[in-house]
């Protein structure tokens, strides 16, 4: 049986841990607010650039841009976005499991894995995967320069025929309590076909095709920026929730240990009293 001293020491150590998890929960909550704002405030641009792309694709008519070209799929790239850090529950593992499920299809060599974030890099690196490209770190908040570099490389891979298709696997932020691992196609770009009647009589300067060509890379980059923002918001919310749960667990552990400590203390007191009483009785009789 543990001594009361040992139990008190454990209580103190759990309390320290609880303070840490509490602090981490609050930090994650603050970061979540920022990245959530980022997701919402970026939506108008994303919606508009998508609409403009469709408009231009329809206007340019027979667009033969290489990024639109649907080829028979021999090699595929999978961009897997998770976090740099742990202590966020099953956030990273959920993404990794989903990635493994997707890549069960076909030979390992037919995949160009593109891990984004330290955790995914470590996991697949240890298992001997060769990376088509990688972003070793994602950072705390959305980083446009990183998104830009990734977009350029993915476009280049698609254009030089290294891969025939690029998908992104990430965690969509639904609400603080709910997240969903999702895979979305990135390349080739699928322009949603709008009805011919919807195209208004626009003036295009210099020409629909020329604008289209400059718009397309930005569109791809923006898609990546959006999924990164979603993933970051999900990460912070996952961390907030799991650290909140850890704080609650610590509270339960502390209250249980306190109970045990009190029982031992009470038992000691009772034993002492009965010894005194027993001793007094004995003296009386003699």
């Amino acid at each position: 049986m543990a001594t009361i001293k040992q139990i008190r020491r454990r209580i103190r150590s759990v309390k320290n841990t609880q303070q840490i998890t509490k602090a981490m929960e609050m930090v994650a909550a603050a970061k979540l607010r920022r990245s959530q704002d980022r997701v919402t405030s970026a939506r108008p641009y994303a919606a508009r650039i998508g609409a403009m792309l469709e408009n231009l694709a329809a206007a340019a008519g027979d667009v033969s841009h290489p990024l639109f070209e649907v080829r028979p799929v021999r090699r595929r790239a999978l961009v897997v976005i998770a976090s740099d850090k742990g202590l966020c529950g099953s956030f990273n593992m959920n993404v990794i499991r989903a990635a493994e499920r997707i890549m069960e299809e076909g030979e390992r060599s037919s995949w160009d894995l593109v891990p984004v974030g330290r955790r995914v890099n470590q996991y697949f690196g240890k298992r001997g995967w060769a990376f088509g490209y990688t972003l070793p770190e994602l950072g705390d908040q959305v980083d446009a320069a990183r998104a830009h570099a990734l977009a350029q490389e993915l476009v280049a891979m698609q254009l030089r025929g290294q891969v025939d298709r690029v998908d992104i696997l990430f965690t969509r932020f639904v609400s603080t309590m709910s997240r969903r691992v999702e895979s979305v196609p990135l390349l080739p770009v699928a322009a949603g076909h709008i009805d011919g009647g919807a195209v208004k009589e626009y003036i295009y300067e210099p020409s629909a095709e020329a604008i289209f060509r400059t718009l397309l890379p930005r569109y791809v980059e923006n898609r990546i920026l959006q999924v990164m923002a979603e993933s970051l918001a999900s990460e912070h919310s996952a961390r907030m929730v799991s650290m909140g749960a850890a704080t609650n667990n610590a509270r339960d552990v502390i209250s249980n240990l306190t109970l045990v400590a009190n029982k031992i203390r009470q038992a000691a007191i009772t034993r002492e009293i009965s010894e005194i009483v027993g001793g007094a009785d004995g003296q009386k009789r003699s």
Partner: protein
Amino acid sequence: MPESFQLTVLTPVRTLLDERVESVVAPGAEGYLGVLANHAPLITALIPGKLAVRLAGGETRAFALSGGFLEVSANRAVILADAMEEPGQIDVERAKRAAERARERLRDIHGKLDVERAEAALARALNRVKVISEPRE
């Protein structure tokens, strides 16, 4: 009073401007172009340059625009900007340093893609410096 229309400037990060305006002068790929109320539907690419806006009521504002796209339809103008600052928000020293870096890169690189990127960076940096020095012209 001249008729007004809605101007919205969006960047990948956030909405920068959403106002009633009387006129917009934007740096189009083929030269500066002005937009007034009831302009014909238009989509054009924008290059780094000065975006001059006259708000409803007559106040004028100028911005350093780092390229993007302009769409006008149904008396509404939307600019998808790569980035945009008001003169007060520009860090002149940083812009000058960026220009210097871009010039250096132009001096010692050969790849076509890199030249394009360095030129674009140079144009953006010079534009920021320029908009600060002559915001009202």
